[in-house]
């Protein structure tokens, strides 16, 4: 393997910041939400959480969200809400507060920053004690209870009914579930499948004016649904539309052309009559 003759192009070296952000992105699933992510970033500042710079933290978070969006990775809504809130907090911290009596009860940037710092500190404390708690010698793990409480030879004399609160709640939940059967909906992803793309493309081509249009090459992008915000859908639509186009080219209904790697893809309606004439 080491003497492989095929030269691979090395990826450009990544700078440290990028790698860190990438690591966070990779782990995004592991976070309990934006606050949890913020806490991880705060720990990276390597200072006592009481002395943390909320402004630096806000900047780091906003840069992270920017990076994620540039990679077209979908972020859950609460991460975006947090980003908006931090941007607001940042502006409040940077702008001098207007000492006006009219603005009643509105919290200063410092007060909001303080609240966020407290939130992080409290969460940090809870995560720490959760670890400590589960590191204790636990019953059934490090401390074992009596296994069988043997008696000297007599049969049991009393029945003890076993049921706990969870059993009751679970049983009541079961009745309620039976009475109101849940409607299960299979979660549908906003994807465009092949059939859809084929119908769509055929439809659009069919509606293109005949004659002079036939000679025009049109970019494949023009056949894409116009939904910029749904990244996933756009990507699947691109893939499906291209596949549909290839299929239609195979059926000799259109021509496809691409001038180079990653260059735009063009398609043109194939005029069967004219081609027949040419052949003749």
């Amino acid at each position, binding site marked *: 393997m080491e003497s492989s003759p095929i030269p691979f192009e090395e990826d450009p070296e990544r700078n440290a910041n990028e790698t860190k952000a990438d690591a966070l992105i990779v782990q995004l699933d592991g976070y309990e939400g934006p606050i949890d992510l913020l806490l991880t970033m705060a720990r990276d500042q390597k200072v006592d959480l009481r002395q943390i710079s909320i402004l630096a933290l806000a900047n780091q978070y906003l840069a992270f969200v920017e990076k994620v969006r540039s990679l077209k990775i979908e972020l859950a809504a609460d991460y975006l809400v947090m980003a908006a809130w931090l941007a607001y907090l940042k502006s409040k911290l940077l702008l001098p507060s207007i000492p006006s009596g009219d603005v009643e009860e509105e919290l200063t940037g410092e007060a909001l920053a303080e609240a966020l710092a407290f939130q992080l500190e409290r969460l940090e404390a809870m995560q720490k004690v959760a670890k400590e708690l589960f590191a204790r010698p636990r019953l059934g793990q490090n401390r*074992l*209870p*009596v*296994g*069988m*409480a*043997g*008696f*000297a*030879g*007599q*049969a*049991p*004399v*009393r*029945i*003890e*009914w*076993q*049921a*706990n*609160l969870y*059993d*009751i*709640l*679970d*049983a*009541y*939940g*079961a*009745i*309620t*579930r*039976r*009475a109101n059967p*849940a409607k*299960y909906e299979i979660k549908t992803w906003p994807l465009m499948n092949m059939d859809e793309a084929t119908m769509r493309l055929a439809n659009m081509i069919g509606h293109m004016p005949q004659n002079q249009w036939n000679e025009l090459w049109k970019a494949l992008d023009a056949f894409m649904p116009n939904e910029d915000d749904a990244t996933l859908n756009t990507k699947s639509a691109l893939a499906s539309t291209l596949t549909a186009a290839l299929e239609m080219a195979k059926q000799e209904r259109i021509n496809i052309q691409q001038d180079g790697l990653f260059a735009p893809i063009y398609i043109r309606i194939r005029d069967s009559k004219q081609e027949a004439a040419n052949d003749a």
Partner: protein
Amino acid sequence: MTPETDDLRDLRTLEAALFASREPLNVDKLHAFVPHLDGVAVHATLARIRQDYDGRGIQLEETETGWAFRTAPDLAENLATLRVEERKLSRAAMETLAVIAYHQPLTRVEIEGVRGVATSKGTIDMLLETGWIKPGRRRETPGRPLTWVTTPAFLDHFGLESIVDLPGLDDLKAAGLLDRRPAVAVTADLFDEDGEADAAGSTEDQEETEAA
């Protein structure tokens, strides 16, 4: 504690293993806990433990199936109340108890209405035996049917201060108890024919059929 010798640690290990095991342990099984000892040493250690417990409330006994701790025979009478057999409530009884807890006071017909299935007499009897339910007032309707309510022993057993502290439907929903693991429940209903307690359908069906 003084720094323990290897001997003492072996003794403590066997003692703890005998205590925590769910079945008597024969010498082979005991050996697995102290693999560095030979058979003679295992026996010697067991003999020492047995001697240590001589005259105490617990004794180490050797039976056909292996070694096990037992309470001393002469204490049997004093310990009679501890000689219990643990039994699980059937699914039908569990559901009936839950309905009574949430909707009390209510009659048997009303219980059936909430559960959506007939309730056998055996189910109510079983619950009466637990001491967790009792008859309440008769309903002032034709036939004057008996209602059922939970007892203070119910609150005590389930660690509730009062019946209003039972989580409401909103709480159950938030906890995920109203719509959890649907696929598992469905397949258990369909495929479990042994009548396991947790297969919601099967035991209940059996019982209700008997009642019908």
